């Protein structure tokens, strides 16, 4: 187990390096003169030349990447083109909000998803199973941002139960969290169901029945514990989709998180800010996946061995 953790940690390092490289290279994909783009339209030739010098754009590519990495390791992600503040500062202000949003949405994903999956699996092909599965199908089919708009219309505009936008109180959080978590919950529900139906066929469930164990114990103790192990991986992957989805949901609900920061920066062509935002979100995702993998390995050790 310890060996696995070390191995997995070592595998993470090149991936994070790869991510920085990709983010760096994407900047190089900017069509035309990077310095021109950085300086913005109507900048004088002189400003452009200054920028070129400042950003080391005259250096060969690998030197530029080396400088970029050197900065990163010191926590320097460059400066915003918009207000010349350090990128990292701006990100640190916005990041906690997005993390909060993503964590709550993950909780929704887990609780609703697993509950729905159990309801389905307990009586497969029954009316309750069909209902849950149809809802889950709708959940993965509707765009999250559209769902957010509809929820906003119903609960904030028509019923006026909840505020329209922002991120100041629990009431503000309900709709964005639901809109963001629904697709994940639907996927987790489908996964939980199929995993449980798989486990129910196992020999040890027959053994439990032959011992005279009561039905609810067979479901919650014997089946669920085993069935949830593969669900861990799905939740981990869903966290990535959630993190990406914050861009859309924060835009719909006007939440000043990292996603909205990235979006605004794209609109303003504030490339260092986009770069920094994407990089931070990706590193978080990589670390979450690392954690999930270890968790999975830990729970699966008892089954793996067979």
């Amino acid at each position: 187990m310890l060996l696995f953790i070390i191995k997995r940690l070592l595998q993470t390092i090149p991936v994070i390096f790869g991510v920085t490289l990709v983010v760096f290279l994407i900047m190089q994909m900017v069509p035309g003169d990077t310095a021109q783009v950085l300086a913005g339209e109507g900048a004088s030739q002189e400003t452009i030349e200054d920028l070129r010098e400042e950003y080391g754009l005259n250096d060969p590519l690998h030197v530029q990447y080396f400088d970029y990495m050197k900065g990163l390791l010191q926590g320097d992600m460059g400066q915003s083109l918009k207000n010349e503040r350090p990128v990292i500062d701006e990100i640190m202000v916005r990041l906690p909000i997005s993390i909060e949003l993503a964590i709550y949405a993950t909780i929704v994903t887990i609780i609703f998803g697993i509950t729905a999956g159990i309801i389905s699996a307990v009586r497969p092909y029954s009316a309750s199973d069909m209902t849950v599965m149809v809802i889950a199908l709708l959940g993965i089919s509707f765009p999250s941002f559209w769902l957010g708009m509809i929820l906003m219309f119903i609960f904030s505009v028509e019923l006026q139960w909840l505020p329209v936008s922002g991120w100041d109180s629990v009431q503000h959080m309900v709709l964005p969290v639901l809109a963001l978590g629904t697709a994940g919950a639907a996927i987790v529900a489908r996964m939980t169901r199929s995993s449980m139906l798989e486990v129910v066929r196992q020999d040890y469930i027959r053994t439990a029945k032959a011992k005279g164990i009561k039905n609810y114990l067979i479901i919650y103790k014997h089946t669920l514990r085993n069935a949830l192990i593969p669900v861990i991986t799905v939740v981990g992957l869903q966290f990535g989709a959630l993190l990406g989805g914050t861009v859309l949901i924060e835009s719909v609900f006007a939440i000043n998180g990292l996603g909205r920061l990235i979006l605004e920066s794209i609109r303003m062509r504030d490339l260092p800010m986009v770069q920094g935002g994407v990089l931070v979100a990706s590193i978080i995702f990589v670390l979450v996946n690392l954690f999930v993998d270890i968790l999975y390995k830990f729970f699966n050790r008892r089954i793996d061995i067979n």
Partner: protein
Amino acid sequence: MKETLLEIEGLKTHFITKKGTGRVVDGIDLTVYKGETLGIVGESGCGKSMTSLSILQLVPEPGKIVAGSIKLNGDDLVTKTEKQMQAIRGNHISMIFQEPMTSLNPVITVGEQIAETIRAHQPISRKEARIKSIEMLRLVGIPSPEERAKQEPYQLSGGMRQRVVIAMALACNPELLIADEPTTALDVTIQSQIIKLMKDLQKELNMAVLFITHDLGVVAESCDRVAVMYAGEIVEKSTTEELFRKPKHPYTKGLLDSIPKINEVQEELTPMKGSIPSPFTEHSGCKFADRCPLATDICFEQHPSLVAYENDSYQVRCFHYNESTSGKDVGHAKQS
């Protein structure tokens, strides 16, 4: 006089599908007496496992008991509700399955798996159940049971696991233990250890064992009486001694011939040719006729019944077994 524990009469367990009816268990009569060991022998697919699952009312979909009765101490199990059966399973009747690797829940400690069985049937505390489970582990010969109880199945070897399975099955002192190929998945030395353990415990706890196996060697070692099954039917029933001394049904003879004999120069293994017919096939004659060296016209036309000979000391289902005229038909109305 031997006391009857379990009496199966005319049991039929069929798999009803769109493609037809699979007669997996097709009219079985069996009696298990208190404290004895009855073996059911046959190739895989002959319906022996379904017979045992029928007793516990655990036949998997789309299987269904369509006829017959299974009486435990005179009480018919077929008519019981699921709730009533839960009180019987693991308590009065226990079962050991073939695969020790997969028949224990991988995420629950072995101690807890034994303790929960006890708690399902007896009103005792968690702690008492834990102490009892450790006792059970000791009883089945697991060294340092206190530590083992806290372990999960993946930490135990195959033989150990099967001991745990046995401990689990015996935790509530059942009157009947159904052992479905309990040693098949184990290697030979552990096999004989487990069989010896089961015999010792049987004596100690005074229970009956229904031993299901395809291995005649195991039967010779452990059973008092034997029923040979073929394609959902019993074709021969007698004491173990009688069966090995003088097998009567051509199928039994075939089975015995296919065992390699240790003291013989190893010639060729003589497995019987052909294989068991699918339960979905319709038969008008004897189900074994296709593979039988003695088959004549009558065997393909009429279905033989199980006939008792010599004061009911053994029963055979074969037209060509006519050792004495004392034979009396023990079958019910002739099967259609």
